[in-house]
């Protein structure tokens, strides 16, 4: 823990991955872990491991801001289930990691606390919305981190910062104590430096929870047991629709090389089709904004958070929300209210839910032929801070490879598979798996990782 705090001291001024952290509390947890180790503690696989949290997951007695001004000086009255599970496994849970406000964004530039910087090039974005989580792990400020993924918010920043990001299957991990953005898409997941750490943290946080009725009663396997390197005969799907001009040439070349590498490892490559790919972004931005407009109605300045007084309640709500939310959150709430409003519900929201069915069927059909799907994670490497903020639609379109996974409710991960030449920026490879198929994609990712050296490269931050 002291090593992480020293590292934070040394690099955090240039990265700004954390909104806040309590060093004294972290060291007290570390002392307790030392005593437990000395006492021969058993059954605590993460004993003494420093794990930091995206600022959207509640820890009792700690601040919770969701990267927004609207929560004011909010202090969580209870802890999320994932926090209790990490603590039960012995982890040191510390810090509030920066994020796009309410997880809306792909660059962490939408944080009310200022942007996070990519450790590989501090003039660039770390990705988002879990940009603080990815940057903190990549810059060695913590061993692992939790984030959330609604349309790629774990996998895309993991790709851009050169670490491993895992979005579990919808329902795999309890969301009790997670501030909701889009309830039918949100999932808590992990950031780590390699696949084995990912498997350990995922195992610790998974499982059904009576406090989250959307968590699914499927037994949690020992994910580390799947990491046996044997991928012979596994079928990997290459998506026909993703091949046409989707990704930057250097990224496409790195992914093509990874596909060849998997063939050498004994996997079989099969071309598949996801015919409704072209409709995924539009579907996502209707479903996600509609759910967000409902979920974020609770931030009204009455029971918690910041308040701007008004002459009557409606005036108070409008002023509080007008002052408290940033531009991207306002845009999305307004869009969501519109697609749900009388006269437009059938044309937008209901239609999007039906197209979502078609997108899910695409994946069901694909997974009848293959064990996993292989794609780039992001079509571009990390861009410069400020480069895309003026065009929200362009920012949306960069989520093309990650968004369908959430609509289908399946699992996916991103792992390092190379670097761009000049400047040297990480490239991420995405593996998508069936519902509750985490073991298969972890097995594949582990076999790739252990036979390549990308994951051993660290950013130079002197």
């Amino acid at each position, binding site marked *: 823990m002291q090593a992480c705090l020293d590292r934070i001291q040394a690099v955090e001024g240039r990265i700004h991955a954390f909104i806040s952290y309590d060093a004294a509390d972290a060291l007290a947890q570390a002392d307790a872990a030392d005593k437990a180790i000395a006492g021969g503690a058993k059954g605590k696989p993460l004993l003494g491991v420093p794990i930091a949290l995206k600022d959207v997951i509640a820890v009792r007695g700690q601040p919770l801001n969701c990267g927004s001004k609207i929560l004011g000086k909010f202090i969580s009255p209870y802890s999320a289930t994932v926090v209790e599970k990490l603590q039960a496994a012995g982890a040191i849970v510390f810090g509030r990691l920066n994020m796009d406000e309410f997880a809306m964004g792909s660059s962490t530039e939408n944080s009310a606390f200022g942007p996070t910087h990519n450790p590989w090039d501090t003039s660039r974005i770390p990705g988002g919305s879990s940009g603080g989580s990815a940057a903190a792990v990549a810059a060695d400020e913590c061993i692992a981190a939790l984030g959330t993924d609604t349309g790629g918010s774990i996998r895309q920043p993991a790709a851009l910062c050169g670490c491993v990001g895992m979005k579990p299957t919808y329902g795999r991990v309890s969301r009790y104590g997670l501030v909701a953005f889009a309830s039918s898409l949100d999932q808590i997941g992990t950031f780590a430096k390699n696949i084995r750490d990912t498997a350990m943290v995922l195992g610790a946080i998974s499982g059904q929870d009576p406090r989250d009725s959307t968590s699914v009663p499927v037994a949690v396997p020992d994910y580390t047991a799947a990491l046996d390197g044997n991928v012979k005969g596994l079928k990997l799907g290459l998506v026909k629709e993703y091949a046409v001009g989707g990704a930057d040439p250097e990224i496409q070349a790195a992914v093509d090389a990874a596909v060849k590498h998997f063939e050498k490892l004994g996997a079989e490559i099969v071309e598949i089709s996801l015919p409704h790919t072209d409709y995924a972004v539009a579907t996502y931005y209707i479903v996600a904004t509609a759910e967000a407009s409902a979920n974020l109605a609770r931030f009204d300045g009455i029971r918690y958070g910041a308040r701007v007084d008004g002459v009557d309640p409606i005036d108070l709500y409008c002023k509080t929300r007008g002052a408290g939310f940033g531009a991207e959150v306002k845009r999305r709430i307004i*869009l969501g209210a519109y697609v749900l409003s009388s006269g437009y519900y059938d044309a937008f929201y209901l239609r999007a839910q039906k197209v979502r069915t078609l997108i899910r069927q695409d994946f069901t059909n694909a997974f009848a032929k293959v064990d996993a799907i292989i794609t780039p994670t992001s079509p571009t490497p990390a861009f410069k801070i400020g480069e895309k903020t003026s065009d929200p639609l362009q920012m949306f379109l960069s989520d093309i490879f990650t968004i369908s996974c959430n609509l289908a409710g399946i699992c996916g991960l991103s792992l390092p598979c190379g670097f761009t030449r000049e400047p040297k920026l990480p490239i991420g490879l995405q593996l998508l798996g069936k519902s509750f198929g985490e073991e298969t994609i972890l097995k594949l990712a582990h076999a790739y990782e252990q036979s390549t050296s990308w994951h051993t490269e660290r950013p130079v931050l002197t």
Partner: protein
Amino acid sequence: MAGDFDVKYVAHLARIGLTQDEQEKFGAQLANILGYIEKLNQLDVSKIEPTAHAVPLVNVFRADEVRPGLTNEEALRNAPAAANGLFMVPKIVE
């Protein structure tokens, strides 16, 4: 459909006060996004059932038992204004 998008009206529905500048900027940006998402009209979805959740779970019940919750003090701790164990709000009725 994007043409009749009234940002001021929808922002009021969502209880978000916008400045004049925001109205103009968001109005144009959202009209652009609405133009894009209209591409869903290209698909025939007449025979397709909607998906509300990716993992269909039905009737998740629990026993109707009293369980510990937040104390009054804990519930009010983050209130912007509170008095006498209650949240303070603007006057609603005369």
